[in-house]
């Protein structure tokens, strides 16, 4: 099978980490670079987490540090969801190699330039790196096959009543990405809050038995704490949707829509405003993912975890 080159761009984060578990295990994808971004936690923490996740999973692509703050917005973090480290929970391995010395955006540009075919960017954090890449190297747009994001929500928000965290964190970056004219897939809260992994699923995940499965189960135990207080019946594991919609579209329902980003609202800054009824003359610019078959999602996770059988790296207790 010919593999599709991808760049992983995220702010790990438990759900970014699980998204990358799926990406590394999938025979369709060839990870060319991993880039961190400030979001769920500060850039120092998300970079360290990205680095350690790659070591755990055996992702050999270079890992580079991305944007340390949004383009113009004030940075916020989501310690309530992800803990002090941004990836609280089970012990993790120390990085097994140095970081790539390039800034994240430069690494992304290098991968695009050197790739004989267009590369897909899977962005599971604020869109700061992607926006900076697009505005700094517009000539490389033709080397981007598609941008697949977790962010936004057509019907509602989470971080604000009308805005989802990743978009609210850097609305200007999102605006640049949504107006770039590139193929764009948006996994917003409409689908990702249905991507629930419940405590009933945890034993099945653990029973895969390898180190990665044990750590993923530990991440889920931690990641479920905050949403449980909010009344969720499981952990909404958002970010893997942005990977799986590209590799397993059959478990999702999508709709083409024109989606714009509100930058100035008192209550709506960072809202993904979707023209679901065709009020504007604008052509659809986004494939909006609306629904997921949750049971198949869990099946795919268990399947992906089996990929890591036999892999065991020393962790820092």
């Amino acid at each position, binding site marked *: 099978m010919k593999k599709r080159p991808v760049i992983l761009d995220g702010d790990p984060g438990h759900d970014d980490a699980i998204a990358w578990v799926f990406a590394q295990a999938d025979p369709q994808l060839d990870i060319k670079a991993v880039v961190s971004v400030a979001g769920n936690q500060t850039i120092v923490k998300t970079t360290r987490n990205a680095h350690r996740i790659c070591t755990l999973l055996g992702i050999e692509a270079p890992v580079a540090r991305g944007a340390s703050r949004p383009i113009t917005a004030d940075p916020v973090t989501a310690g309530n969801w992800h803990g002090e480290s941004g990836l609280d929970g089970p012990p993790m391995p120390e990085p097994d190699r140095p970081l790539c010395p390039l800034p994240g955006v430069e690494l992304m540009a290098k991968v695009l330039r050197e790739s004989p075919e267009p590369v897909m960017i899977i962005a599971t954090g604020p869109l700061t790196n992607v926006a900076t890449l697009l505005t700094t190297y517009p000539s490389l747009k033709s080397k981007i096959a598609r941008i697949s994001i977790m962010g936004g929500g057509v*019907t*509602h*928000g*989470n*971080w*604000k*009543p*009308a805005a989802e965290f990743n978009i609210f964190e850097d609305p200007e970056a999102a605006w640049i990405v949504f107006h770039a004219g590139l193929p764009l897939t948006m996994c917003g809260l409409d689908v990702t809050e249905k991507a629930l992994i419940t405590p009933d699923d945890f034993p099945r995940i653990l029973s895969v038995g390898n180190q990665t499965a044990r750590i993923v189960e530990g991440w889920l135990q931690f990641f479920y704490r905050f949403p449980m207080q*909010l009344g969720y019946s499981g952990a909404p594991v958002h970010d893997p949707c942005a990977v799986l919609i590209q590799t397993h579209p059959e478990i999702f329902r999508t709709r083409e829509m024109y989606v*714009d980003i*509100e*930058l*100035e*609202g*008192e*209550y*709506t*800054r960072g*809202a993904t*405003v*979707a*023209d*679901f*009824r065709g*009020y*504007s003359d604008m052509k659809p610019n986004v494939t909006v993912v609306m629904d997921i078959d949750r049971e198949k999602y869990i099946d795919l996770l268990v399947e992906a975890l089996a990929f890591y059988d036999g892999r065991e790296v020393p962790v820092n207790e």
Partner: protein
Amino acid sequence: MNEQSREIPLIWIDADTGVDDAAALMTALLLEKKGLLKLMGISAVCGNVELEKTFENARNVLYMAGREDIKVWPGADRPRLVEYHPAYHVHGENGLGGEILQESPAPRETKPAWEALYECAKAHPGRLELILIGPETNASIALDLYPDLTGLLKRILVMGGAEYGGNVTSSAEFNIWADPHAAQTVFKSGVPLVMCGLDVTMKAFLNAAEMKEIESHPGHGSRLISRASTRARELMRASSGETAYVVHDACPVIYAVCPKIFTGAEAGVFVETRGPLTRGKTVSDRITDIKFGIKNATVVLDVDRERFAGIVREAIMSV
């Protein structure tokens, strides 16, 4: 409608009459005839069409129903800050799809709507329920001029807004979009609110069979609604393929006396007044992780359509 035992609700309707406003007024008159509410006054506001027209339309609908004894007060002739845009494409240039009603012989009231409303509220402290079925300009002026009005009103029931979607833009419903600053004043007022937005009103329609029955009925009300609603029905057919007439404005009127045929939930709801893409959006925190920290509204989400339609059909056919 089996609630006679409680104190009869005193109702004030503020309307931009309008075809579905006319149906809502007829509904209020039917409910009054059944002893379920008392209609204390009606105020006119610019919205679907200009104030001069909404004022005359309300007066003439009452006259058509033989109720020209109910006073209609003239209100605001423009939104508080934003530019005025009528909705001729739904209601026609005269607001009633071009239908000409007989002119009411009742004397024309000249006292401003907000003053008349305040006097009524003051005469019945804690009992008056204000139903807003147009832009919320008059209500916001009343709340601004008379700070004690907040404590005098029992509650405000609104046709306007939507938790999800819109009908003017993808984010905003007409009544809120037409005067978002006024709506925000109302939503921030502290008066208990009931919001009948598009979430419920799009489910509050007369179906093809019911409209057919009204079309073949000889009464004045039936003739007005069947003829004046053709634009709205065509728009509905074009956008959704449904053959139905949505009677948005009757929702808060019926909710006032028959809340049991509706379902809703408490939420924090405020109005976006600044966002260029989302101006007039009613931002609800009902299903989001982060809350506003105050629940100022009952957001109505669903209705027993059959029972709703039964009341509205009877109301139209009894005029």
